[in-house]
């Protein structure tokens, strides 16, 4: 029995107003902008020295230069070695580091406030006096090349690489990382020149949030950074963005992948576009969160995936819309169907009043949570400043969200989601994906995990025939170093799924998740042999009552060929 007060959600308590004070702003004569936000709640300070250039501004003949510059800033200076810098920073319990994104280069630091003077000294040391030692640069090159190889084992990296290439064409945003060749030819002289040319005060903002006295801090910054000589801010000239006319399918073949990583994407808007807030609200209704339509459909109703979302990637000069999920391989096609259903639905219906209200309440409600910590707050200020958003952006953010109308949501959905011409990128087992996804695209291309194109006609061959019947007991003779070892397979088949048993002299194994495609059988048997689990991979081609194929296991170096017949 439920008491009445439990039946409906309770009303809220009196709302407590929340406002973010406008930070202090000033500019030094050399052009360095300073933004200070005093927050004395905790004895902490967060710092960002942010520059208005990023990886996208790499010279054409020096891909990866900005990223190398940021990594190398703390690898040796006129006064300290790489190790001494690391020790100095960490001995304060602090962090000081530099990183780059497509559009920006940021030196970040955080520390207990009593170490303020040390942190300012360390930031100026790495910004003004890096020496880019040859041995450290050479180590950077080697480590980066190894990391690039490692990244290629990550399905997300492979999906992002193809998506960026398809959407951005010749624009620098098309590159998600430099190539190994580019990294290998990065020279010290190039870094030194680039450092002098790019780290200039008139393209930088120094942002500080925390337990500081504003006027004293400004004096300290001026003392350390006032003599910094301005330079010339280079105008960037980027290639225009490609136009898409048809839906395409790009598969990155990762054989044996347990899942398909799906990305559906098209170009949308840059960060300071006037449609930003409408699109943000639209995306919240559609797929940004765990109560959005895409998640509710693909995860909660269908159970295809652990998570399915849509997102806006809005950068300085362009941006895109993406719908993504990692789904189990067998429901790749079904998942695409549901994605397209949702993408079309939000374009064609006006978002329900209630859904829109919920989305707006979420976006306005979580805003104070994001501002609760110094790191959260300083990141909001960094975005405002670097994307060239209005100075009152943080103060008016919630009002702008609240003002979005249902009509606006539908307009931006129609304008910025293009189901008929988007790029579909799927990372996973191409043999499994192709038959499920082919019908959704006019053009298909397949790559391997090294990014090399494959011949599409090599895939899906086994599919053309009828699914063979492999059920029954098979006696196999396995060729092991010239000996013929007897092995049995006892198989049952349901559609194209096969289960059963592998029997050997050394022990038996269970077969689960076997598959028949056309006349090809593929299955894995897990056997217990002398206390160890051994995994056998079985591939076979069935012709009537005979089968030929191979058996492979980690304990034998090469796959063992077999021939066999079905017992009557």
């Amino acid at each position, binding site marked *: 029995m439920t008491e009445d007060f439990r039946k409906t959600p*309770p009303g809220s308590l*009196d709302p407590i*107003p929340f406002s973010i004070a406008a930070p202090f702003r000033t500019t030094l004569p050399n052009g360095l902008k300073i933004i200070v936000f005093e927050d004395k709640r905790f004895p902490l300070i967060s710092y960002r020295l942010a520059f208005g250039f990023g990886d996208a501004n790499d010279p054409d003949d020096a891909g990866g230069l900005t990223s190398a510059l940021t990594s190398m800033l703390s690898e040796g200076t006129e006064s300290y070695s790489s190790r001494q810098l*690391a020790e100095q920073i*960490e001995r304060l319990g602090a962090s000081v580091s530099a990183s780059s994104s497509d559009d920006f280069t940021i030196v970040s630091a955080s520390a207990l406030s009593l170490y303020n003077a040390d942190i300012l000294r360390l930031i100026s040391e790495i910004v003004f006096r890096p020496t880019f030692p040859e041995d450290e640069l050479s180590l950077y090159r080697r480590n980066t090349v190894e990391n690039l190889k490692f990244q290629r*084992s990550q399905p997300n990296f492979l999906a992002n690489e193809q998506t960026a290439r398809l959407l951005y064409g010749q624009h620098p945003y098309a590159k998600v990382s430099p190539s190994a060749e580019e990294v290998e030819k990065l020279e010290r002289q190039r870094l030194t020149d680039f450092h002098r040319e790019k780290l200039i005060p008139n393209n930088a903002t120094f942002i500080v949030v925390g337990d500081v006295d504003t006027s004293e801090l400004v004096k300290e910054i001026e003392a350390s950074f006032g003599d910094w000589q301005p330079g010339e801010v280079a105008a960037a000239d980027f290639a225009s963005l490609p136009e898409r006319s048809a839906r395409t399918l790009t598969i990155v073949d990762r054989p044996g992948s347990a899942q398909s990583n799906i990305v559906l994407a098209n170009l949308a808007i840059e960060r300071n576009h006037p449609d930003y807030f409408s699109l943000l609200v639209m995306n919240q209704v559609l797929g940004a969160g765990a109560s959005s339509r895409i998640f509710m459909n693909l995860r909660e109703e269908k*159970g295809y995936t652990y998570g399915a979302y849509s997102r806006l990637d809005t950068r300085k000069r362009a941006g895109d819309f993406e719908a993504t999920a990692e789904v189990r391989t067998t429901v790749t096609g079904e998942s695409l169907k549901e994605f397209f259903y949702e993408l079309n639905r939000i374009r064609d219906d006006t978002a329900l009043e209630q859904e829109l209200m919920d989305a707006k309440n979420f976006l*306005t409600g979580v805003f104070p949570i994001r*501002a609760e910590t110094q790191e959260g707050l300083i990141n909001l200020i960094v975005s405002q400043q670097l994307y060239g958003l209005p100075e009152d952006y943080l103060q008016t953010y919630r009002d702008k969200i609240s003002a979005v109308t249902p009509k606006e949501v539908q307009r931006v959905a129609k304008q910025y989601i293009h189901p008929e011409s988007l790029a579909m990128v799927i990372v996973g087992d191409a043999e499994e994906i192709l038959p499920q996804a082919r019908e959704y695209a006019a053009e298909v291309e397949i790559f391997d995990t090294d990014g090399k194109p494959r011949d599409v006609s090599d895939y899906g061959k086994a599919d053309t025939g009828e699914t063979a019947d492999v059920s029954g007991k098979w006696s196999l003779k396995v060729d092991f170093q010239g000996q013929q070892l007897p092995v049995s397979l006892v198989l049952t088949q349901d559609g194209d799924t096969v289960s059963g048993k592998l029997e050997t002299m050394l022990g038996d194994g269970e077969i689960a998740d076997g598959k028949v495609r056309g006349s090809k059988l593929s299955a894995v048997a897990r056997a217990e042999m002398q206390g160890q689990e051994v995994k056998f991979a079985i591939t076979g081609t069935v012709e009537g009552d005979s089968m030929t194929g191979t058996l492979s296991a980690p304990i034998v170096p090469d796959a063992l060929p077999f021939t066999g017949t079905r017992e009557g």
Partner: protein
Amino acid sequence: MSENFKLTPLKIEEYTLANGLRVVLNQDNAVPVVAIAVYYNVGSRNEREDRTGFAHLFEHMMFQGSDNVKKAEHFQFIMKAGGTMNGTTSSERTNYFETLPASQLPLALWLESDRMRSLAVTQENLDNQREAVKEEKRLRYDNQPYGQIFDLINEMIYKNFANSHSTIGSMEHLDAASVEDIQEFFRIYYAPNNAVLVISGAVDIETAKGLVETYFGDIPSQPLPPELDVTEPREVASTYREWEDPLAPFPAFLMGWKIPKRRTPEFNALYLAGKLLYDGESSRLYQKLVKGEESVIQLFGFTDERRGPSSIFVGAIPKPDKDLSKIRETITAEIKDLAENGPTAGEMQKLHNQLINDTVRTRQSSIARAQNIAEYALYDGNPELINTDLDELLAVTPDQIKTTVDEYLNNENRALLDVKPGSSS
């Protein structure tokens, strides 16, 4: 300086409802936000040998509706009120937490109490969430290079089943689970007297107390769950295993040691020793293996903090042409140096500043405060430890680090997992 550092204590108020629910309130009005954390004293350690994965499956079930909250409405209520939420499962506990505008405290308490008193354990929800868990396993474990190595090494470190099996559990066990099994699990472990509720943020204490009583006061308590034995012999279950990972692009290895439980002087000393070995760019192993001998692509280490025997790990993904055994010798030599000579004065200063910095930084966020307080309340029966635990860590001496490393981090009682890249074709 760190010797004179005094942490401003958090305001903590603790009490217990008549039904046994432990409640901790931490008022902080700086930002109009409130965080609620509900910690149930159930984790994978409580699972039966033929029913693994239940604690984690439950984390999913808890979002599937209750008497007055429909399936998946929990997310929606929180999100449309402008909040964020999640739940996680470990060996030790299952936790549920949300952060909301402060005015939405009643909503959070209504939602948490409704599922504590009346979770909808139905066949449909069970089937649906079993599939979601399987998908999560594919995503996080099966489809990721090196995704299974931490589960594997736990089986090598621990002998006691309660400690050794994975949180994600066995999919066969989940398939075999009946609705009755799940209902029984809920009755035993999701009782108010088996949980801690923490509220942190901009709340009025009296209002909060009234709301807590209204929503949780009449949920019946249950007999306490069965006694749990997590004791372990000192030695690891197995010292070596080779594992073929079809998705791994490079060989790798992971070493693990069994160490005493959390918040013992030994655990604290080893936690600090670990930081000196692998934490940050000035750490000993980073300087030796990433910079000096430049042998590894990735180096990582961490402690797994438990109420029973715990563990500490060091792992590396070496560069392709490097000799794995040489890298392990370097690690062994560095550990040996720490055991013979102890940390330097500079290293102790680093540890102290890092501990203070991390502790203060964590206190900025209401949800981080709520979670830390909940752990101390649930594991130690004392939420006030949030104000004193730092002192215990700061009090660890160089000599304690030296002798404890010598005693525990030896090669004879170490689990070593060698990962070989498999062929995926």
